[in-house]
């Protein structure tokens, strides 16, 4: 007869105040399969664990039930203890007599009866438990970072410093992201490109980082430690090996188009690099606007290129790589223009957003650092900044706060003052959110030292009168409507995830929220992991945040990857599905129902090598143990190790 040991915990007074532990012990000792019962105040403590270990060894226990708190708390603790005492850790079950009993009932008699029943069920289950071995999965020590902004750059550099081969994927022609577009950053007013470009150059020069720019993620297969990613290298139409970065092609190209990097304020050519410090410094031909591709004429760039690097025949290339972990750092976009008809954004030329203003402020930008009205190129005298244009608006925009706008608007008002000393900056705000180091002081400086006027109230409407913009706002603190005649209006539009964030999330198999921000594994305690093992998050792709927080999160994600790679093998719990190959008929309904894509096909052949049938096979490293396939299988050929039908029926039958 198998000997099961039962250990009942008091958990101080958490269990004992509602459950009569001694009576439980008395009743349980009468059970047929139980050969040892005891109780202790805190089973999870060292002495408590020792009691279990000694009992296993001395009484030669064949199975253990610990009646205590939820398995989510201490199952791991007790299983480790069992292992150390020489018992297979999967021959141990926990009966939850705390969260499911003492914490939810107040009647002692009923609670005690229930605790006894719960333990009886666990004992019945354990008699059917089979010993399981942990699964070891090999880990490829290479990482993929998706997104070449400051988040991606930081992660890549951290990983490379630890000697990990890293692929950095960026879909625009150069890395740098939005940070490269900024003029100066708060609260130090450091020149953004000056602090960013050294990092960009490090990325380019680091032997461990392979840069894939103008490339996108096409497909992801596999599982943690063993991802197979397909990368689409979009055709640059410029031979990367031959190009010297001399820039002649860009000088001679006749086509001019609004530049994406300058948010439409400046222009670029059809063959272009996005900005002078671009990494890599290799141009790209924009097929949509190039005269050769549209009309079959020109080819000037080819004629003037001294290195003969232009190649109109280049095709998109697809590359497959194997990596062990993925960091998603795809960043953000700003809310589009047409959302607020009342502000005339998109209709009035002089209503712009934060990034457009940054490009104007930037000394290397389209206006050479001068703040000019887009309509007539004159310098403005009065600039109105409108906060929360899109954020905190459940009706037309997004309900959340975009976190960085109060700070960057205060910065804008100060930079405006520095560039155009005679200009008046007026900021319409609802609340000022300045919760970082030196942030509150920074905002106060805008009003106290740099002369910005802060007005508490939202703006209802903007209209054009002659060449001025009339801003109809309110000062809620004096309780009056307030009208301002402005020359330029800057809207602090909402921070949103990239437009195709949801498609990317589906490719990767990670979850996202209703706006498209990728979901972290736990909002408080696991900010850089996702629900899928091996995929990590960094930067604004997860939620709006400022540069210090982005860099911190990027390093955090890199450290998680390094922890993953610290072993040659990955150990995973064996609570997975297993297919009975003899009875499986190969209908593969399970394959369709598996959310983790863990089911593959296996060929069963006879001794001569002829194919008998194809059966389903569960990949031990990928399976999450959810049991969907178990339920789907029409023949009942799949069992979930640790939760087999025998175990569960035993539990139910004993009630």
């Amino acid at each position, binding site marked *: 007869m198998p000997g099961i040991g039962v250990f009942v915990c008091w958990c101080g007074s958490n269990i004992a105040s509602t459950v009569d532990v001694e009576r439980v012990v008395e009743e349980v000792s009468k059970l047929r399969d139980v050969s040892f019962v005891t109780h202790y105040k805190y089973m999870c403590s060292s002495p408590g664990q020792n009691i279990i270990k000694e009992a296993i060894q001395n009484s030669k226990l064949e199975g253990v039930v610990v009646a205590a708190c939820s398995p989510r708390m201490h199952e791991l603790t007790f299983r480790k203890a069992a292992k150390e005492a020489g018992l297979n850790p999967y021959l141990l079950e926990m009966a939850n007599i705390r969260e499911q009993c003492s914490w939810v009932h107040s009647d002692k008699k009923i609670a005690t009866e229930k605790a006894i029943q719960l333990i009886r069920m666990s004992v019945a289950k354990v008699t059917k438990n089979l010993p399981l071995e942990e699964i070891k999965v090999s880990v490829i020590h290479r990482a993929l970072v998706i997104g070449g902004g400051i988040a991606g750059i930081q992660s890549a550099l951290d990983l490379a410093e630890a000697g990990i081969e890293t692929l950095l994927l960026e879909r625009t022609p150069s890395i740098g992201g939005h940070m490269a577009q900024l003029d100066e950053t708060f609260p130090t007013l450091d020149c953004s490109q000056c602090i960013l470009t050294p990092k960009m150059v490090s990325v380019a020069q680091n032997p461990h980082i392979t840069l894939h720019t103008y490339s996108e993620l096409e497909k992801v297969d596999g599982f943690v430690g063993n991802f197979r990613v397909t990368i689409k290298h979009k055709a640059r139409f410029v031979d990367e090996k031959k190009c010297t970065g001399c820039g002649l092609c860009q000088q001679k190209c006749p086509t001019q188009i609004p530049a994406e990097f300058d948010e439409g304020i400046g222009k670029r050519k059809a063959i272009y690099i996005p900005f002078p410090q671009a990494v890599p410094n290799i141009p790209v031909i924009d097929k949509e606007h190039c005269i050769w591709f549209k009309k079959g004429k020109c080819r000037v760039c080819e004629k003037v290129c001294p290195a003969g690097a232009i190649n109109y025949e280049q095709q998109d290339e697809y590359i497959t790589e194997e990596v062990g972990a993925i960091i998603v750092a795809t960043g953000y976009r700003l809310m589009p223009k047409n959302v*607020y*008809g*009342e502000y005339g954004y998109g*209709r009035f030329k002089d209503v712009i957003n934060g990034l457009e203003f940054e490009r104007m402020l930037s000394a290397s930008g389209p206006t050479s650092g001068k703040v000019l009205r887009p309509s007539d190129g004159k310098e403005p005298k009065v600039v109105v900044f409108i906060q929360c244009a899109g954020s905190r608006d459940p009706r037309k925009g997004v309900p959340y706060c975009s976190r960085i706008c109060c700070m960057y608007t205060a910065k804008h008002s100060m930079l405006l003052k520095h560039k155009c000393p005679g200009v008046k900056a007026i900021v319409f705000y609802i609340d000022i959110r300045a919760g970082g180091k030196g942030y509150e002081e920074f905002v106060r400086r805008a009003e106290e030292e740099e002369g910005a006027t802060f007005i508490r109230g939202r703006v209802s409407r903007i*209209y*054009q*009168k002659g060449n001025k913009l*009339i801003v109809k706002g309110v000062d809620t603190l004096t309780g009056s409507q307030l009208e301002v005649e402005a020359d330029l209006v800057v809207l602090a539009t909402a921070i949103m995830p990239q437009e195709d964030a949801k498609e990317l999330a589906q490719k990767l198999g990670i979850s996202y929220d209703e706006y498209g921000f990728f979901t972290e594994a736990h909002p408080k305690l696991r900010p850089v992991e996702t629900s899928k093992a091996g995929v990590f998050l960094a930067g604004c792709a997860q939620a709006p945040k400022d540069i210090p927080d982005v860099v911190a999160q990027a390093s955090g994600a890199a450290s998680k990857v390094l922890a993953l790679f610290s072993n040659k093998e990955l150990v995973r719990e064996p609570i997975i599905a297993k297919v009975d190959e003899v009875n499986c008929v190969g209908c593969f309904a399970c394959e369709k129902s598996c959310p983790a894509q863990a089911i593959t096909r296996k060929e069963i052949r006879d001794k001569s090598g002829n194919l008998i049938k194809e059966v389903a096979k569960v990949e031990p490293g990928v399976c999450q143990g959810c049991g969907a396939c178990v339920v789907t299988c029409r023949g009942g050929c799949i069992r979930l190790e640790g939760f087999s039908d025998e175990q569960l029926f035993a539990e139910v039958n004993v009630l």
Partner: protein
Amino acid sequence: MKFAYYPGCSLKGTALEYEKSLIKVCKDIDIELLEIEDWNCCGATPAHQVNKYLAIALPARNIIKAEKMGLSLVTPCAACFSRIRFASHYLKDNRWREILLSVLGEEYAGNLESKHLLQIFIEEQIQQKIKEKILKPLSGLKVACYYGCLLLRPPEVASFDDPEHPTAMETLVHLLGGEVVEWNFYNECCGASFALSNPQAMENLVYKILLDATFSGANCFMVACPLCHSNLDTRQVQVNKHFKKHFSLPVFYFTQLVGLALGYPPKELGLYSHLTNPMGVLER
């Protein structure tokens, strides 16, 4: 196209030229209007400020009549349009339908579609019909399209055009060969019933509208609401007096402008009933 026609009280009185012009024009472009029998006032502004049940019951009596006719309801008055749509909106809820049953003694199935006449005029097929019949395009007219409030707001109830940047009237003006003026006060309030209960405020609001329209180069207005027409048309003299200005901007109902383009003489469209003389502008 056949509709249950709900004129609204003012169309039979101070806005009779609106009805005059719309009856003529609708006949020409195959819009058949069957006036709802024994319709009652929708309650307009006072009802919803005094008693919510009344504000729903009064329009509802007409809604039920239209439903019985088996036709969609169309009204030329923006306020009536707003009240009827509010009532329909509330009556989508079972609770309100039950209350209505107890008050009116009649059941409402909840399916009535109600539209403003302007919405019908800009539908593809009607636009086509108008285009076919244009005899005198409105060249020389610089039209400030004035929407007012209730045609566009609240957007969930009106469901008619973009409340911040509407284009319905502009489409019509272009169709008729007139010139559209870019201006700012196209959806700012005219003061509505304050014309009687708070005339100073109304004058202020009308003044701002007249000022912006003149500043933008308009020489006339297009409206789709009898109260907006009344405030902009009949009150120009007192606004001129109060603010020492010389505004003279005639105010046309959109049906009148369509009528003119279709070749009707001004008299038949009731243009002589206006207080601000439209003839000067029309001579050009």
